[in-house]
């Protein structure tokens, strides 16, 4: 058949295997070429759906997504049980490690690092942990809560000094430094896809989050008795287990994905907007949390605010990744493969003709039989 949009002869299918356009549709789903109703990494979802697993774990096939959701849920249930049992120090440790460990399993499952696990994990997760330790310790030297909460009996109010340090300076510094390990990845040219950059960035961000969480809660870990009344710890645990790692991972993933796009010579408003979005989201998360806490707002409202910020960040990442996948997969040649999303045996180029999944987001095992593409656009202007 001939594609409605790129006009190339392509095998029959619901989607063009060359450009990914949804065939035979007009405007009922919006722009069929951009097909934002069919997220390229997981066509069962809309691009604007703030799903954690399909956004930050883009290489997972359809079945694996559910398995990781169950694993995440099991981890959260564990945190809840420990909280209800009053084992707060244990709950803090599980919360801090949960998402980073889940991501480590994901990296192993998708084999994103191919044959170089030590280098990739060292520069992403390990680098993020080192940066996290250094930045958090320096941050504690600069920001001392006792400087800003001298009199707990005073009326609730927001300290401008604290807001500047915690809500502005720290998020910007963190966003700059968290991306450094992935930026200096020595074998980055072997991983040219934007989806690779996203995953490496998320890994670095989660390493940072792990270090930040453990250092931030070190006082509680060393002071709390083994068993205490659960009290209101559930709010801090929810932030530590879910929202903080998702924010740190998403923001760094977005920044590193943009660096990857730049290296391919594709730096437009969408990518620049991505970096701005990451920084703004981090500022909104940290600054908003501080303001709401200082204003003695209900802790549930603080969690809702944090979730809204993280949700917006996830949607922008999906938007960025979706368009990157549509562009980058369009240059692939034909090969036999199995679609990781719909599990159909296909002869396809860049997209599964059956479900529209971008095959550059397939797990490495499925891509392994293919050689890296010779795309001149991959190394523009001598950048690598």
């Amino acid at each position, binding site marked *: 058949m001939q594609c409605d949009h790129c006009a190339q002869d392509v095998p029959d299918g619901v989607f063009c295997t060359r450009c990914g356009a949804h065939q035979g549709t007009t405007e009922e789903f919006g722009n069929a070429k951009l097909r934002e109703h069919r997220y390229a990494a997981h066509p069962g979802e809309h691009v604007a759906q703030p799903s954690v697993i399909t956004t930050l774990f883009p290489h997972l096939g359809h079945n694996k997504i559910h398995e990781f959701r169950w694993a995440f849920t099991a981890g959260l249930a564990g945190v809840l049980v420990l909280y209800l049992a009053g084992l707060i120090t244990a709950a803090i440790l599980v919360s801090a490690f949960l998402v980073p460990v889940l991501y480590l399993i994901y990296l192993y499952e998708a084999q994103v690092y191919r044959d170089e696990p030590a280098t990739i994990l060292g520069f992403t997760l390990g680098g993020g942990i080192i940066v996290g330790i250094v930045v958090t310790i320096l941050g504690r030297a600069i920001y001392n809560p006792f400087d800003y909460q001298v009199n707990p009996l005073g009326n609730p109010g927001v300290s401008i000094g604290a807001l500047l340090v915690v809500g502005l300076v720290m998020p910007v510094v963190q966003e700059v430094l968290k991306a450094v390990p992935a930026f200096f990845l020595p074998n980055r040219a072997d991983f040219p896809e934007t989806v690779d950059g996203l995953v490496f960035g998320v890994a670095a961000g989660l390493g940072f989050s792990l270090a930040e969480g453990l250092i931030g809660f070190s006082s509680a870990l060393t002071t709390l008795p083994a068993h205490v009344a659960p009290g209101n710890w559930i709010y801090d645990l929810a932030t530590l287990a879910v929202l903080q790692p998702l924010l740190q991972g998403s923001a760094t993933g977005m920044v590193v994905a943009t660096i990857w796009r730049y290296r391919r010579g594709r730096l437009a408003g969408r990518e620049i907007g991505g970096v701005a979005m990451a920084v703004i989201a981090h500022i909104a998360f940290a600054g908003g949390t501080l303001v709401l806490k200082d204003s003695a707002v209900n802790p549930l409202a603080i969690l809702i605010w944090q979730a809204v910020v993280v949700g917006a960040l996830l949607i922008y990442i999906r938007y960025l990744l979706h368009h990157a996948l549509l562009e980058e997969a369009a240059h692939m040649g034909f090969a036999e493969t199995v679609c990781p999303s719909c599990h159909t045996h296909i*002869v396809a180029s860049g997209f599964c003709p059956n479900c529209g999944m971008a095959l550059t987001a397939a797990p490495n095992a499925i891509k392994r039989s293919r050689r890296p593409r010779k795309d001149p656009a991959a190394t523009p202007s001598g950048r690598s």
Partner: protein
Amino acid sequence: MAVTCARCGTQNPDGNQFCQACGTPLAVAASQPGFASPPATALPGPPPGPPPGAYQSPYYSPSAVGPQPPVHRTPWVLIISAIVVLVVLMAGCGTAFAVLGSRANNNGSAGILPSPSPAGSPSPVATPTPTTPGGTVSNKGESFTLPGGWTVASKDDESISVTNPDGDGSVTVGSGVSDPAQTAQDNKATIDKFFKDKYPDTKACPGSKTTTGSLNGAQGIFWEVCFTLSAGGQSIQAGAPLFAGANSDGSVYYVVLLLTSQSNLKSFIAETAPVLQSIHWNLT
């Protein structure tokens, strides 16, 4: 000999099972002169093995001659088990950490409470620390001497807050008119409610006692609360030794609040001795 794709006309090398340009199976296409309708791309069965020789796609080809590596799959049981093991392992580590940590804290914190003085005693703290005088700070309600290195963080008509040189603790002294009149117990209840509202996990510090006594002439109650102070990504276990008093008819209140981390309580109380000893209540 090159094989021409019947669908798009591309010349494919011998051995190709699929057209390198459009993906049409060459055997099928070749057997259908005037190919019009390509076969469905979703193959009904397992894909055929890799074509002999190098795949000539302009972008992708088998990485090596020989059998393809098996597809990597982590069993779901392993994924869930890894998370369960994480929970169990961290629960064990966290509990052990807490037991060892609290044992160490208990050993090091015996007698950390400020000793409330019996009525008439001049100071709640026994051992004053020699310091370089930093001047006197005062308002309508109280005045006290500031040791060298201490700084005034805030001051109004009723209260003064000062911080120590290390910035890891503060002292707030307050006094003013109570209208309507309130007893020391009423003032304590007000402060307890305030802490509970602002820091919901506020509780009496482990091992602490509530006692009555006097602080530089003001009769009142001594007690100690512990709570979690979270700010800027940090979660600190804070401790606050408190004094709440009132004059004989309840028309004047007196408050002293020390704030620092629980692990620093003992040394901070000793450090604040010169401040507490020098407090002079202006309202009686």
